[in-house]
C-alpha cells in the first residue's frame, strides 16, 4: 500500500510558500518584477490547491470529508497530523483569495519599497496555512510563531516612526501571548500526556477530576493567546493602533490573522470541550467566550464611534466582527456556528477591502503620499516606483464612493450585500433554538442572553453605519477641494475583486450555506474526526511491504504490525 500521490496535496499550502519565500530571499530589489511574478504564482498555486481541497473534502474523496496526512509517516498520536476538512479548506480558500488581492494591491508601490516584502508575505501565508491544517498543539505554536514573526516584519514594512511605535507594542504583546501559549500547552501535556488534538479529544472525557482541572487551567491559559490574536476585550487594545499603522496590503492580511484566532478557538473548543457529552470538562468555558465576545462588540462599537481616522475605524470594525464570532462560538448552538462562519468570510472580505480602499481615499486629501517619500529616502531605494500611471480617471471618485458604500453596507450588515445575509441568518438561528426530539416547538424559550446578543449585533450595526456615514460625508461631500485622485488599475482591481466576491457570496448564498452546514456538522461530530485521525495507518516501509507482499497480506497487516515506524522516503518524497 502506498500513499496516493494526491494525498500529498495537504502539504502544498505549507511547502509552496516556504519554498517560494526561500527563493525570493536572496533576490535583490533590482529583480522586483520577477519577485512579484514568483510571489503571485505562488499565491495562484495556493488558490488552486485550496479549490482542489474544497472539492476533495466536499466531493466525497475522503470518508467524512476529512483528509489526514501523517507528516513523516508517524502514526497519529506520535507524529504530527495535518488534517484537511471542509472548514480548513474553506479557510485556506479565503486566505488565498485575500492574499491575491493584497499582493495585487502591493504590485505598484508597497511591494517595491523595502527589500523582503514578498519573502515575508510568503512566510506569513505559510504560517497561516499551517495553523489551519495542523492538528498538533505544539506544531500549532510553531506555525503561530512563523505567522507572527513574518507579521512583525510586515507591520514594520515601510519603516517610519508610527509603524515602529505600533510594532513595538504589537511585538511585545504577542511575545507575551506566545509565552502564555507555551504555558497552556505544557499544562495540557502534563495532564494528558499528549498534544495531538484528536488524542486529546479522545482522552479528556475519561480524565479523573484532578487532571480535568489541570486541563481546564491549561486550556484557559492557552486560549488567552488566541484571544489576544482575535482581540477580545480586554486583550485587544493593540489592534486598532497596529491596523492603522500598517501598510494597507499588510493590514488586509492582519484582518485574516484575527480570524485565525477565532478559527482555532472554534475548532479546539468543539473538539476538547463539546457541549452535552459525558465528563467533567464538557461545556467548559463557553460562557466566558460568550460574555467576552459581547463585551468585545460593545468595545469595538464604542471605539468605532469615537475614532476619527479611517484606519482605526477599520480596526474597530474588525474588533466588532471577532467579538461577534466569539459570542457565536460561546453561544454553543450548532446552527448558529453555520451563520457565524458565513459572517466570518463576509466580514473578512469587507474589512480587508475597506483597509485597501482607505489608502486610495486618503489620496483625495493628500494627492501625493508624503509618507512614502520618507520611506523611500530612508531605504535609499534607487528604483523609484512609477507614479501611478493611470489617467486621472473621471470615474475615480465614483469608484471610491461606490466601493466605500459597499464596504459600509457589508460591515454594518445592511441589505443587499453579504453582511445582511450573515446577520439575518444569525438572527434566524438565534430565534430558532434547536428543539429536543419529541418536544413541542412552541415550548422552546429563547434564553435572555440570546436577546441581548441580538440587541448588541443590531446596535453595533447601527453604530457602524453612523460612523461610516460620518466619515463618508466628510470625505466625499464636504471636502472643499476634492480633486479626483489618480488611481492605478492594479489598485482598483483588488478592491473590485473583493467586493465582487462579496456580491457573489450574496447571490450564491444557498450553496455556500449548504457547504458551511456540512462544515459545521463535521466539526460538531468529534467522534468521526477522532476515529479518522487515530485510525489512519502509517504507510509501511519498503521492508515491511516486501515482507507483507511475501506473506501475501497487503497493507493493513503491515501497518498494524509496525505502528509509528517511519518508512524511509515514502511520505517525504
Amino acid at each position: 500500500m502506498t500513499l496516493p500521490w494526491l494525498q500529498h496535496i495537504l502539504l502544498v499550502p505549507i511547502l509552496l510558500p516556504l519554498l517560494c519565500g526561500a527563493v525570493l530571499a536572496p533576490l535583490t530589489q533590482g529583480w522586483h518584477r520577477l519577485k512579484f511574478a514568483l510571489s503571485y504564482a505562488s499565491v495562484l498555486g495556493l488558490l488552486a490547491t485550496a479549490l482542489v481541497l474544497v472539492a476533495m473534502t466536499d466531493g466525497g474523496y475522503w470518508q467524512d470529508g476529512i483528509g489526514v496526512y501523517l507528516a513523516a509517516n508517524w502514526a497519529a498520536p506520535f507524529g504530527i497530523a495535518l488534517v484537511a476538512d471542509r472548514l480548513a479548506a474553506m479557510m485556506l480558500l479565503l486566505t488565498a483569495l485575500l492574499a491575491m488581492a493584497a499582493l495585487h494591491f502591493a504590485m505598484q508601490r508597497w511591494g517595491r519599497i523595502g527589500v523582503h516584502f514578498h519573502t515575508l508575505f510568503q512566510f506569513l501565508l505559510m504560517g497561516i496555512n499551517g495553523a489551519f491544517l495542523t492538528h498538533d498543539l505544539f506544531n500549532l505554536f510553531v506555525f503561530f510563531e512563523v505567522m507572527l514573526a513574518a507579521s512583525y516584519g510586515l507591520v514594520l514594512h515601510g519603516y517610519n516612526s508610527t509603524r515602529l511605535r505600533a510594532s513595538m507594542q504589537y511585538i511585545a504583546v504577542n511575545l507575551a501571548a506566545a509565552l502564555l501559549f507555551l504555558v497552556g500547552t505544557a499544562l495540557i501535556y502534563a495532564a494528558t500526556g499528549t498534544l495531538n488534538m484528536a488524542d486529546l479529544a479522545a482522552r479528556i472525557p475519561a480524565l479523573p477530576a484532578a487532571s480535568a482541572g489541570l486541563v481546564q487551567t491549561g486550556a484557559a491559559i492557552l486560549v488567552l493567546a488566541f484571544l489576544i490574536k482575535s482581540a477580545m476585550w480586554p486583550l485587544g487594545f493593540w489592534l486598532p493602533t497596529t491596523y492603522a499603522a500598517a501598510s494597507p496590503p499588510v493590514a488586509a492580511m492582519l484582518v485574516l490573522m484575527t480570524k485565525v484566532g477565532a478559527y482555532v478557538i472554534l475548532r479546539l473548543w468543539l473538539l476538547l470541550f463539546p457541549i452535552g457529552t459525558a465528563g467533567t470538562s464538557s461545556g467548559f468555558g463557553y460562557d466566558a467566550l460568550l460574555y467576552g465576545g459581547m463585551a468585545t462588540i460593545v468595545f469595538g462599537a464604542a471605539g468605532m464611534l469615537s475614532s476619527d481616522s479611517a484606519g482605526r475605524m477599520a480596526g474597530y470594525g474588525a474588533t466588532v466582527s471577532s467579538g461577534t464570532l466569539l459570542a457565536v462560538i460561546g453561544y454553543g448552538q450548532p446552527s448558529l456556528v453555520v451563520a457565524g462562519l458565513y459572517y466570518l468570510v463576509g466580514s473578512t472580505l469587507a474589512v480587508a477591502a475597506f483597509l485597501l480602499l482607505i489608502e486610495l481615499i486618503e489620496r483625495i486629501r493628500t494627492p501625493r503620499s508624503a509618507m512614502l517619500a520618507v520611506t523611500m529616502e530612508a531605504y535609499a531605494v534607487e528604483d523609484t516606483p512609477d507614479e501611478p500611471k493611470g489617467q486621472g480617471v473621471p470615474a475615480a471618485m465614483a469608484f471610491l464612493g461606490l466601493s466605500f458604500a459597499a464596504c459600509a453596507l457589508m460591515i454594518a450588515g445592511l441589505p443587499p450585500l453579504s453582511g445582511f445575509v450573515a446577520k439575518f441568518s444569525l438572527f434566524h438561528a438565534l430565534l430558532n433554538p434547536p428543539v429536543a426530539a419529541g418536544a413541542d416547538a412552541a415550548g422552546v424559550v429563547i434564553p435572555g442572553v440570546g436577546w441581548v446578543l441580538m440587541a448588541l449585533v443590531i446596535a453595533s450595526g447601527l453604530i457602524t453605519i453612523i460612523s461610516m456615514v460620518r466619515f463618508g460625508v466628510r470625505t466625499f461631500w464636504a471636502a472643499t477641494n476634492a480633486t479626483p485622485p489618480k488611481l492605478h488599475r492594479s489598485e482598483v482591481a483588488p478592491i473590485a475583486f473583493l467586493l465582487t466576491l462579496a456580491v457573489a457570496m450574496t447571490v450564491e448564498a444557498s450553496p455556500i450555506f449548504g457547504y458551511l452546514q456540512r462544515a459545521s456538522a463535521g466539526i460538531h461530530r468529534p467522534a468521526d474526526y477522532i476515529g479518522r485521525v487515530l485510525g489512519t495507518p502509517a504507510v509501511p516501509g519498503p521492508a515491511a511491504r516486501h515482507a507483507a507482499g511475501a506473506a501475501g497480506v497487503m497493507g493493513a497487516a503491515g501497518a498494524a504490525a509496525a505502528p509509528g515506524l517511519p518508512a524511509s522516503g515514502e511520505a517525504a518524497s
Partner: protein
Amino acid sequence: MEAVIALAIGIVFASGIWLVLRPRSFQVLCGLMLMSYAVNLFIFIMGRLWVDKPPLTPAGTVPDPGTLADPLPQALVLTAIVIGFATTALYLVVMIGSRGLTGTDHVDGEEPEP
C-alpha cells in the same frame, strides 16, 4: 524539590512581569527574556522531576519506560528556546530602530510630560 522549582519559576516569572510593565524598552526586553526563561523551565518540569532517569535508551536493550524520563518536554523546550531567542532578537532590533528614529527609549516613543 518541586516546591523549590515552583518558587523559582514563580519568582522569575513575577520579575519578568514587573519588568515588562516598566516604561523603558530595555526593561521590557529583559522582562520578556526572564518570562521566557521561566516558561522554558516550566515546560521542562512538565515531564515531572526525576533523579537518575535519562531520556535516552541505551543501545541494544529493550527500553523500560519506568527507568526513563519523558523526552518530549525536553524536545519541546529546545524548540521553545530557539523560537524565543529568535523573536527576542527581533524585538531587540526593533527596539534599537525605535531608539534611533525617535531619540528615546520610552516604549511609547516619546518622553512622558514631567
